[in-house]
Structure formats: C-alpha cells, structure tokens
C-alpha cells in the first residue's frame, strides 16, 4: 500500500508539493474552525460529475487549512487535544460513509498491510471456510446493518468483514466482542470503528509532534505560526476546556467508592482486582478521583500501591516515572494545565462507560455489585428489578447516558429525567441521597479536611514494593 493509493478524503494522506500560502493562512484556518465549532463535517468525496482537477483543488485547500491549524495547535496542549478530538470526529464521519475498499486501504495504512486480511485472504491462508461461523456468530447484531432477508444478510456478511491481528484491537479481544481465530480478530468492519478512530488519533498526535519540532527549528516560520496559534486560541476561548467547571469537585468524596458513578466504580474495581488499567483509563479514573477531592499525594500513593507495574520500584523511583504523569493531571508539572474530569460524552466515546462498553450480563453483575455495596444484601423489590431491566435495555439500545441517569434514579429513589452529563454530577447526587453530601462539601477544597488527613501518608523512599 503506497500513500498514493490512499483516498483523498483520508486526512493523513501525503500530497507532495502543496504550497502553504502564509498570507492566506488565517482565512483558511477560519473556514476550518467554523466547520469544527459547528460540528459541520464534510466527507470530501469526489462528487458525481465533478472534474478531477476541481476535486483536487478542494482537497488541497483543505490540506492547506489543516496543515496550518495542525502546526499551530501543536504549540499548545489544550489546542492539540481539541483538534485531535475534532479531526477524529471528522475522520470517523468520513470513514463510516466511505466505500468498503477505501476503508480497507485506510485500515491497512494504519495497521500495516500484513496485519489486515479480507475474509477470502484468511480462508486461503488457513484453508478454512468462515461463512457459516460468521453467520452463527454475528447474525443478531448485524440484522440492523445488513437487512432482514437471510440471503442478502449471508451474502453481505463476509463482504464487509475483516480480519485484523488481535494485538491491534486489544479492547475488543479483552471483552470477547470478536471472533478470534489464528491470531486474527474477525468481525464486520462496523465493530472496528471505535478502535480505528483511536488509532487515527494516535497517528495524528505523532504527526503533530513532528510538525512542532520542524516548526521550532525554523525561526521565521515559528513566529508566524505562533501568531496563527494565538488567533485560533482567541476564537476558541472556553470551547477548548473539557469537562465541567472545577467547582464541581466534591472534596473528600473519593472514599465513598460505592457511590461513584458506574464508570469510576468499574475502573476502581479493575485497579484493585487486577492492578492494571490501560493508559487512557488511568487518566479517566485519575481525573475523576481528583474531582472527587483526592489530593495529589493520596493519588500518588493510591497508584503506587495498587498498580501492578510498580513492583520493584521504591516510592521515590515511582515518583520519577508514573508519578510525573499523575502530577501532570493536577497541573503541577509540564504544561501546567489543571485538567478537569472528563464529561460523559467523552467517556462514552473514548473512555470506559460500562453502559456502552460492557455486555449485558457483565453490566448487570456490575450494577448489582454496586447496589449491594451501597445497601447490603437487602432484597430487590419487583419494581426495582423492572427498573434494572429498563436500564439494561437502554444500554443495549446505545443510550448509555440515559441508562446511567436511570441507575442514579434507582439508587437514590429519586426520578432523574435527563441523560447523565458528568460523573461528578452523579457522585454529588448519590452523596446527597446518602446524606453524606453536606458533610463532605462543608470541608475546604484544598485538602484541609479530616478525611484527607487520615488517608495522607508521608512520602518516604527506600522501601521497595515486592509483594
């Protein structure tokens, strides 16, 4: 697969010799900003009857705008995150609409041609037939996508199915959401959408870093692009801050873990049980715990004692490695940004939301566990069981935030109408219901409270963790 073979709508396609007219940079960037701010994504497919030279001009214009915006964004971490999120959304929009062959080209570009096979390639290599297995395995999930007529479903089933090496789709493998054979995760391409989007965003992040280094090496260009960055920042203003305002933090609440929203409860359990979370989910949980009033020292100690990869390290050694990342969340090092906990929309899309990412059985177990954690072994009424069924049904219909809100209703016995917007909103309301909200929120925000003092341990080095 050469870059030349990639479709023009692919945002990371390299087109040689594209000029970057600095005099037009602000105009180009403004058009792009208008689109992103209004979430008006365009496919950039060649329209029917559109001459190729006109189409190519459109492509080049977009590339110019994106290049300026990318380089400018690379100079500011908040801008960078905002841009990656928006480019990721636009990429996802285009990818889902693109013809299957072009989707395959892009996936092969992202993962390496040797790591992606069509069904026929897989069957040839391993001398097996997949059709029957695929129909057995995926038929109920894909009825909505491939039509209800059995014959058309069967014909379509393998046409839009891919085999990707399992190590590139770890989340899908871990959750057993894909058929795994001979080291390949085999599934309809729709199941890979989220993973592919994340991979695209990773590649974009790498590109931004390279562009930043190149820009910094060219003094005059750097001065110019700084000016573009400042212009973008002034246009975006508050839009680039994620999560709710910091005054949503609930000091001292990090001890009340059964009252956590299910996303944080699930992640907290995973750390306690397995000692491991992928990086993005550590950030999700870390920011939540910060919002729940956990100060940086307590959080450092939490990760040191619970994460499996700290074995063999003294606490001092840990502080220099992973400890840096945790202090970064609090704005104490690096960019100095005081990050806020992620909102539900971000978590559902890119993080871990059990209502979105767990299968029905394991979701049910999780919710039951959490309820037992709150109220003990008190039996469920019929009404409560029905509520739980409704919650699971909402989750299966991809209404994760609504399901979460209903779960809050279940545990607080108070009707919640709107879909959940933020994990700290959930926490605040569950604490209030449990009668703990006022007690905790009466304390100061800066860790000067008895709960925090109890859990604060002095930072000492020397002793290595070897459990």
């Amino acid at each position, binding site marked *: 697969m050469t870059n030349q073979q990639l479709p023009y709508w692919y945002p990371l396609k390299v087109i040689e010799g594209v000029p970057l007219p600095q005099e037009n940079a602000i105009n180009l960037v403004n058009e792009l900003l208008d689109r992103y701010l209004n979430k008006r994504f365009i496919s950039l497919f060649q329209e029917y009857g559109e001459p190729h030279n006109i189409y190519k001009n459109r492509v080049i214009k977009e590339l110019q705008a994106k290049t300026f915006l990318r380089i400018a964004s690379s100079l500011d971490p908040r801008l960078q995150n905002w841009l990656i999120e928006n480019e990721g959304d636009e990429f996802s929009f285009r990818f889902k609409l693109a013809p299957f062959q072009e989707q395959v080209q892009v996936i092969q570009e992202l993962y390496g041609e040797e790591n992606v096979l069509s069904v026929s390639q897989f069957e040839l290599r391993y001398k097996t037939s997949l059709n029957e297995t695929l129909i057995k395995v995926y038929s109920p999930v894909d009825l909505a996508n491939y039509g209800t007529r059995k014959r058309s479903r069967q014909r379509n089933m393998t046409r839009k199915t891919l085999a990707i090496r399992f190590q590139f789709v770890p989340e899908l493998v871990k959750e057993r959401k894909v058929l795994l*054979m001979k080291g390949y995760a085999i599934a309809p391409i729709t199941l890979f959408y989220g993973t592919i989007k994340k991979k695209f965003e990773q590649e974009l992040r790498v590109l931004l870093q390279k562009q930043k280094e190149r820009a910094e090496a060219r003094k005059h260009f750097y001065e110019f692009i700084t000016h573009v960055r400042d212009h973008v920042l002034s246009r975006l203003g508050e839009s680039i801050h994620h999560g709710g305002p910091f005054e949503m933090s609930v000091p001292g609440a990090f001890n009340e873990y059964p009252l956590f929203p299910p996303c944080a409860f699930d992640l907290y359990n995973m750390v306690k049980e397995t000692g491991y979370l992928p990086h993005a989910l550590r950030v999700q949980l870390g920011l939540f715990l910060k919002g729940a009033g956990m100060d940086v020292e307590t959080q450092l100690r939490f990760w040191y004692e619970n994460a499996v990869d700290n074995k063999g390290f003294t606490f001092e050694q840990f502080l220099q490695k992973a400890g840096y990342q945790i202090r970064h969340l609090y704005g104490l090092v690096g960019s100095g940004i005081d990050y806020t906990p992620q909102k539900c929309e971000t978590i559902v899309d890119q993080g871990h939301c059990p209502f979105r990412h767990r299968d029905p059985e394991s979701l049910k177990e999780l919710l039951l566990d959490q309820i037992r954690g709150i109220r003990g072994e008190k039996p469920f009424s019929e009404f409560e069981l029905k509520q739980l069924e409704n919650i699971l049904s909402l989750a299966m219909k991809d209404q994760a935030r609504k399901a979460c809100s209903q779960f809050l209703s279940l545990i607080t016995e108070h009707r919640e109408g709107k879909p959940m917007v933020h994990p700290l909103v959930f926490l605040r309301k569950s604490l209030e219901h449990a009668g703990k909200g006022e007690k905790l929120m009466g304390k100061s925000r800066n860790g000067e409270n008895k709960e925090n003092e109890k859990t604060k341990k002095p930072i000492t080095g020397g002793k290595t963790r070897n459990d």
Partner: protein
Amino acid sequence: MTEKTPIKIDVPHRTDEMSKEELNRLLKVFYREYFDASPMLQVIDKETFSHREFGFNTVERGFMRNKSFKAIGDLKEFLRFYTFLGVYSGGVFDPPLSSTIRLQDTTWKKREVVFDFDINEYDPVRTCGCQGRQVCPVCWELITDAIGFISDTLREDFGQNDFIWVFTGGRGVHCWIRDPDWAAFTQSQRNAIIGYLGLIHDPQGQQRVDPIPRVTIPFRERVYNQIIAKFIHAIPRQALEELNLSKNQITRFLKKLEQRAPYDLQFVVSNLPQGIEANDFLSVAIKYRYPRVDHKVTIDTRRLLRLPGTIHGGTGYLSTILKDPLGFRLDQRIHVSEIVK
C-alpha cells in the same frame, strides 16, 4: 462412579524431611558444580542476554534484583558466590541495569509473555483435601487440564505455536511464549490476552464467572468439550452443594447419572434437579475446572520469573522444561538431592 472419592496420596515433600542447613549445602554445590544454563536459554534469548534483568533470592543477602551480566559465564560465576533460593529473569532494558543505571534511567524493551498456573489458586475448589502448598495427583489434574486447554487456545485462537511449558519446582507451571513479537507487547495487549482467557473473577473471593458470548464460538465449544466434559464425569458433591441442593437431591442426581453412564452434557443438563438452571450449573462447572491463571504475572512487563534449570529453594525441586506437558506427573519431579552426588 460419577463422583471421584478424594484420595490423598502422600507425595513426600523431601525438603520437609531435610534440614535447612543440608538443603542450603546442596544448593550451594548445585550452582557451583551442576548448574546448566541451557534450559534457561530455551526461554530467554542469547542475543539480548547482556541487557536482561536478573533477580536472586539468597540466604546471605536476601532478595536482589536490577542485575545484569555481560555473558552467561559471568552469571555462572556469580552463582558461585551465595546460596541461591531462587534465580529469576525479568525484562530486557536498554541500557542494561547496573549499580549506576537504575530502572528509572533505562528503557524497557521487552519481556516474554508468561502464564502462571499455581495449584493454590484452586484452593476454593480443590476437593482432594489439599490446600496451600500441598499438591497431589488428584488436584494436579487441574493443572494438566489447564495445560491442555491453554495450549489449544493459544494455537487456535491466538495463532501462537511457539511456547514452552515449565514445571516451576513449586506448586505449578509456567507457559513461556517464545515469539519475539509477543515479548514486545504492551500491558494493554497482555491485558487483552488475559481478559480473553480469564473467566473467573476474584478467584479467592466471590469467584464470579463470566458468561461466554456467542461471538467466541470456537472458544466456547472448547470450554464445553474440554472443561465441562471433564466436570460432568466427576462432579464433586461440594460443587452441587453450592447450587443449594439438599443431600438427597444430590444423591439422587448422581445416582441417575451413574445408572445412565456413559452420558453427555445434554443428558446432564436435561436431568438437573428442579430449580437448577443450566447456566448456574455451567458456571459451577467452570468454577471448578477452568484454568486459573494469575493475571498479574502476565500483565506485569517487568515481572521476575523463576528460570528453568534452577532450583526452587522452598521445595528443593528442579524447575524443568516439560517435554510432555500433558504426561507430566508429580513423581517425575527431580530433587536437588538426586542431582548433587
């Protein structure tokens, strides 16, 4: 007979009969005169030997790690100094670890993916009476079943054929994946493998069993054909008691199976006592027979693991590569007293 009567077979734990001083003497002689590095080199590669972290548990200086050696000869020379209760390998680092280059000064490069199966993980479900350090031929079957199931899953689901099973010298086995691509796996990738394999959560506590989604049909069929098929032909009373069956119900059920033998899973499920759901029965079967892998060992990219060809200081047994993993029996263990003349 459907239910196996637990038979406690007395497999002598020779280190219990031996004084600590005598064992330490044997260990010292072993590493001075009998140690052979070739088994170790079947699981860790020679090319990156000088960048490998080693760890040691010694009588004289306790536990040490973050050590590296330029060549195998240097390691052998080091093994002459102390009385070693354990010799372990960790990850590969660049630059190699030393007294001046610590973990935070270097970059991790790779570490073999290893699966660890210890018999004490099965304590909640061992019906032979063994607990903790104890092991007998009856409960060792659980390890053998794990070897069979995991080997098939690695080959069929993960497309992985390059692995070796090692008896640790203690209470279980390690499966070392020798594929260099796998050695570079991140924690996320290792977690994916363990997440896929792990069906029992909180193994020492609640022991919650995952449902197996229909999408993983080959995996599910393997669970039925290997794990559950074994269970139904030796159903322990303890397992049926977990389903809240009365003594009479259990006796009647087992008798029915005995009279029908041979039988299949369908027969068992369609003759379950009233009130018992098929899924509950299958969950119990998985709890009692499914492989219990220590996920932390697999996920931890810097884990120190005992090397084959070394002696387990707690038992005195040699950690050996299993040429016939499914045929390995406890009486094939080699004690250091048999090696050192």
